[in-house]
């Protein structure tokens, strides 16, 4: 007799926008302020080709000081070639994501340099096996919509990092893979084997199942190395995020609005360079506004203000008619615990409700992004599901108003066995997996486990038993033979 395969009723792509931290007037003020900064202060660009490109496109370039300034009209005209919606594909088409309007997708982030051991809880430098395991876990967790490569393989030489990190990810999940890159050759070689997997360059560019991240530095700097990588990524033809991570109070003004102003200038810089070099290139308005804890100067990835600012990015990006990449769900906790739970939930929920398109860092990361925790991926899978449920909102129609059903059951009756309850029990309610809702006595019988311990059991179970849809054998053989520096042995 058959098992019931329940469909995920709260998948990625539901439309948010119920929470709007900014009014139209506030958006205008932030925009005008950002334009003023672009015109008066400008950005520092430490790459000769980028400077020339800005100059030829008509920006005001001071080659001596490497400063690019620009006016509002020019900026708005140049970014207008960027697509309003970007589709990020999965190797399996059921994981395709259309980043449009206020549609919400939530996924993981990186790049941590440590991983908590699932057996001992010990924090260790992360390695290539951790990348594979995180990708595999995410492939199995239904509420995590894509995989931004989780951690850094510390054991590898720098020139071999890129090809192996991306291959570890692509091999273990059919969800979209995005990742930071470290070398130009890496970008080129990844693109080569991605073409192999896709069955040709045309097919890859038509349905890109991977994309790159290259950073902009706050305040207002396009770094030499990162800009070189950004240009290489643009040349690859694959979609690109160019995030900037101002820390309010230290690398941006000590105010939320001021941080959004500076961040807007930085985020637009990435979009501008992309569109100048390759008009129409799929690029995201990429935002990582964070805060500093001014009691100590500590970097804060899980502050409530961070959630508020990232939520505002959905509104700012739509003002510029661009899809957005935002950040939420990270936390400062050193282990998966209550702090990692409430900090992750607070920022992710705000961003989801505001309709951010691509909320990254929202699963698996702890310790301000310095470490991954396998338990945290499983816990965040619950959190993300709850957030998507909230995004769906309260449906009000004849079916959900249920007047006939209330009449049918009548006073002192019960709704448990009514067909209306069965019909709606999947679409109306989200069922947590980690949360314990049993009676105390059952909980005690099952070992009095807390949420982290339950998540650990679930993570172990997935890693022991779940097999992703690997890259086809013949394609893999060719990739392992042709790609310089690629590791030959992979987790079965």
């Amino acid at each position: 007799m058959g098992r019931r395969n329940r469909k995920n009723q709260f998948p990625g792509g539901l439309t948010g926008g119920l929470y709007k931290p900014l009014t139209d007037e506030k958006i205008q003020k932030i925009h005008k302020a950002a334009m003023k900064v672009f015109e008066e202060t400008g950005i520092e660009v430490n790459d000769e080709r980028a400077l020339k490109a800005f100059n030829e496109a008509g920006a005001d370039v001071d080659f001596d000081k490497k400063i690019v300034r620009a006016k509002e009209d020019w900026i708005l005209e140049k970014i207008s070639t960027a697509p309003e919606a970007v589709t990020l594909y999965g190797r399996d088409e059921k994981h395709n994501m259309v980043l449009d309007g206020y549609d919400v997708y939530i996924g993981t982030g990186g790049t941590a340099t440590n991983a908590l051991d699932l057996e001992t809880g010990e924090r260790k430098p992360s390695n290539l096996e951790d990348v594979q395991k995180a990708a595999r876990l995410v492939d199995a967790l239904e509420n995590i919509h894509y995989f931004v490569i989780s951690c850094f393989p510390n054991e590898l030489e720098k020139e071999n990092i890129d090809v192996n990190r991306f291959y570890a990810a692509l091999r273990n999940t059919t969800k979209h893979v995005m990742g930071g890159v470290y070398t130009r050759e890496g970008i080129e070689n990844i693109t080569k084997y991605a073409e192999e997997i896709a069955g040709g360059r045309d097919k890859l560019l038509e349905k890109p199942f991977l994309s790159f991240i290259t950073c902009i530095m706050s305040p207002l700097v396009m770094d030499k190395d990162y800009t070189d990588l950004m240009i290489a990524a643009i040349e690859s033809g694959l979609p690109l995020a160019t995030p900037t991570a101002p820390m309010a109070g230290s690398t941006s003004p000590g105010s939320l609005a001021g941080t959004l102003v500076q961040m807007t200038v930085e985020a637009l810089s990435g979009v501008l360079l992309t569109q100048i070099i390759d008009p129409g290139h799929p690029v995201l308005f990429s935002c990582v506004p964070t805060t500093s804890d001014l009691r100590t100067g500590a970097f804060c990835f899980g502050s409530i203000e961070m959630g508020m600012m990232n939520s505002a990015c959905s509104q700012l990006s739509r003002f510029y008619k661009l899809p957005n990449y935002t950040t939420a769900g990270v936390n400062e906790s050193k282990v998966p615990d209550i702090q990692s739970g409430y900090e992750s939930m607070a920022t992710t929920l705000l961003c989801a409700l505001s309709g951010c398109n691509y909320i990254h860092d929202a699963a698996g990361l702890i310790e301000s992004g310095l470490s991954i925790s396998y338990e945290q991926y499983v816990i965040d899978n619950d959190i993300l599901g709850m957030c998507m449920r909230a995004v769906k909102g309260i449906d009000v129609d004849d079916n959900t108003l249920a007047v006939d059903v209330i009449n049918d059951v009548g006073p002192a009756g019960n709704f448990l066995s009514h067909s209306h309850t069965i019909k709606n029990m999947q679409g109306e309610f989200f069922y947590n997996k980690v949360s314990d809702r049993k009676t105390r006595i059952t909980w005690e019988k099952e070992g009095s486990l807390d949420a982290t311990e339950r998540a650990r059991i679930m993570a172990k179970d997935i890693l022991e038993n779940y097999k992703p849809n690997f890259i086809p054998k013949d394609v893999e053989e060719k990739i392992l033979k042709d790609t310089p520096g690629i590791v030959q042995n992979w987790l079965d």
Partner: protein
Amino acid sequence: MEKLFNNIAESVLDGDIKETKRLTEEAIEKNATAKEILNKGLLKGMNEVGVLFKEGELFVPEVLISAKAMDTGMQIIKPLIKEGDIKKSGKCLFATVKGDLHDIGKKLVSMMLEGAGYEVINLGVDTSPEKIVEAVKEHQPDILGMSAMLTTTMANMNDTIKALEENGLADKVKIMVGGAPVSPNYAESIGVNYSSDAHSAVELANKLMK
């Protein structure tokens, strides 16, 4: 014929009441015995429901609908059932104790027990010890279930037990209790059995009937 029995089981699992009715009638037309329909069809389906519920695959409302489907089939084959065809699970009497008006938990337990083949008589809410004593005399159940939602009304469980003792009924019926304030310790202190949710209530009843 075997395929038909499987389809009956499947229809119970799906909670498809109309289909269970149709298939059961078809089986009778084809001269299947009541025992075969019951064991290879209706009960087989319900047993699978129990397994899937325990694994979390099926939800409570689905179990209750499956139980309804099984009952529909039972009503059809009832006239054909011979002595010894069915082993009755047992007869239960359920009540929310005096002063307490909460009953959704008790209803859930009742429905789950019915799904497991028990005959359940429900006395409703705010049931006095006297009323319970009368009902035990009248129905002679195997099991008496009492429920309370409030700490203040929980004590009425003990009063009821004393009333049963005074009437010489306490050792003629197995007693199980449940409800939010009730604990295993409390149940033990008043000499009765405890279960913490609807699923374990069925397990407890099965244990008490052995």
